[in-house]
């Protein structure tokens, strides 16, 4: 495993917008607002940004040419720029592109940007499965993003005895974190395990409280070379390890539901960072549905195969427990920014800025992302200088 990218690039600035239902918002406007906030946070002039990498929102009309529209809107002619559409895997993949570009001198300050008005902009996440063949046409009633995860949850339950109550503990602990985050959509709404059990089924075995939110919002991270770390306005957050991996073959792959590509992405990130699970103090694990967190825990090696049910069921992912997970509230309870806020919160924790939800003395954070019918994945290990 090449270690040439380890600690070469830092997060210099982070920005976000209010989250939730923002009437009148647009994907472009939200991305710009997040970018402005990240530029201010980094303490740089926006014209120092020479890399623009964007993840078009579900409501961005430009599709894969979004980077040009965004750069035009903020008046920047970048040296390095593209858009990428990997759903919840986009943020991590763009951060990796930025790390490579900066390490090799292709750009100095790269902004990674996402904005979407999925909540008020009319996005429908309920379409049939992607792909131009019989599997995508609704012939067997397969619609929306829930069912693949529900299929995986069913198998995990059948093979390993995982229970819905265990998922309820996870949902509650992530919600407890959101209750400590004033910016979280669910900041003032507490839930119990019983609330989870009583919530209606969306796609059985997944209840409503197993599912992420749908949100408007924007997020931006500005990255630069670690050589500039000592001159930065903010405490630098080093990107120590990054991996990505994909699963394109599902129907000829008996292990599709277990998402084994995630194991590859995690292994590459840990190898690059020269770290083990024992070194991880806090984790931001992509939680489109509760069950996803269990797969991340097992593939990272925090627990063995099939063992994540009891781990989350015994509240071992709670703040103050051995592995705090999704300290800002995650996709489930903070906001559904397709994993971008997971990276943002990782930086917050590494700066020590988490306030009441800060993991004391945290030095290493694992963040993960995954998208497009579970098929794109990546993992980032970030650290501070402490």
């Amino acid at each position, binding site marked *: 495993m090449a270690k040439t990218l380890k600690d070469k690039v830092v997060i210099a600035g982070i920005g976000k917008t209010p989250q939730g239902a923002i009437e009148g918002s647009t994907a472009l406007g939200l991305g710009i607002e997040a970018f402005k906030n990240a530029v201010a946070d980094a303490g740089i002039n926006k014209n120092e940004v020479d890399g623009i990498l964007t993840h078009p929102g579900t409501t961005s009309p430009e599709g894969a040419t979004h980077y040009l529209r965004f750069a035009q809107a903020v008046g920047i002619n970048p040296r390095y720029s593209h858009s990428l559409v990997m759903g919840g895997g986009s943020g991590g993949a763009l951060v990796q592109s930025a790390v490579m570009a900066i390490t090799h001198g292709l750009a100095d300050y790269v902004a990674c940007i996402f904005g979407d008005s999925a909540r008020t902009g009319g996005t429908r996440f309920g379409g049939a499965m992607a792909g*131009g*063949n*019989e599997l995508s046409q609704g*012939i*067997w*009633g397969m619609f929306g993003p829930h*069912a693949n995860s529900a*299929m995986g949850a069913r198998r995990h339950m059948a093979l390993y005895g995982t229970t819905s109550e265990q998922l309820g503990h996870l949902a509650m602990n992530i919600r407890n974190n959101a209750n400590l985050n004033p910016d979280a959509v669910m900041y003032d709404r507490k839930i119990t395990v019983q609330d989870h059990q009583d919530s209606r089924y969306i796609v059985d075995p*997944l209840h409503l409280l197993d599912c992420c939110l749908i949100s408007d919002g924007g997020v931006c991270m500005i990255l630069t070379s670690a050589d500039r770390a000592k001159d930065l306005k903010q405490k630098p957050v080093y990107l120590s390890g990054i991996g990505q991996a994909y699963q394109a073959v599902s129907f000829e792959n008996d292990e599709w539901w277990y998402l084994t590509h995630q194991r590859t992405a995690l292994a590459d990130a840990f190898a690059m960072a020269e770290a083990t699970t024992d070194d991880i103090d806090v984790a931001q694990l992509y939680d489109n549905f509760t069950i996803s967190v269990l797969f991340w825990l097992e593939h990272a090696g925090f627990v063995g195969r099939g063992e994540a049910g009891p781990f989350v069921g015994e509240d071992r992912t709670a703040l103050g427990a051995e592995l705090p997970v999704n300290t800002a509230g995650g996709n489930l309870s903070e906001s559904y920014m397709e994993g971008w806020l997971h990276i943002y919160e990782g930086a917050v924790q590494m700066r020590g800025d988490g306030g009441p939800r800060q993991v004391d003395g945290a030095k290493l954070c694992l963040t993960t992302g995954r998208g497009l019918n579970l098929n794109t994945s990546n993992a980032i290990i970030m650290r501070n200088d402490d």
Partner: protein
Amino acid sequence: MADYTKPLPRIDDNTDADSRAFWDAAGEHRLVMQRCTQCGHIRWPIGPVCTQCLTEEFEWQTLSGRGELHSWVNFHQPFHPEWAKEAPYNVALVKLEEGPIFLSNMVECEDSELAVGAAVEVAWEDATEQISIPKFRLLQD
């Protein structure tokens, strides 16, 4: 049969490969898939080349129609107006004897009878005069 209102296969919309042979066979209650004439691999979904050796040439092989229940879910949330009328309804994945995993529905059973690994066999639903849709039932022994 004229009142089947759920989505039917859009056979000529498949831009990846010709799926008419699949549905013609289904009309005769035969479940078929493409078998590579070079390496023998059976691929799914329908595609232009063998996923193992990239050979274009294939023959349509009639499958046994048997397999085991890989997983299933129950849709409660309405995503489609016609399917919603049947909610909650199951969607199942069947691991076929010949290898591929097939998306379908379990019929002629109660949800309480379903179990991962259960033996199943194809059961044809004649949706229209032309179209029969492969579904699965629990294999009684």
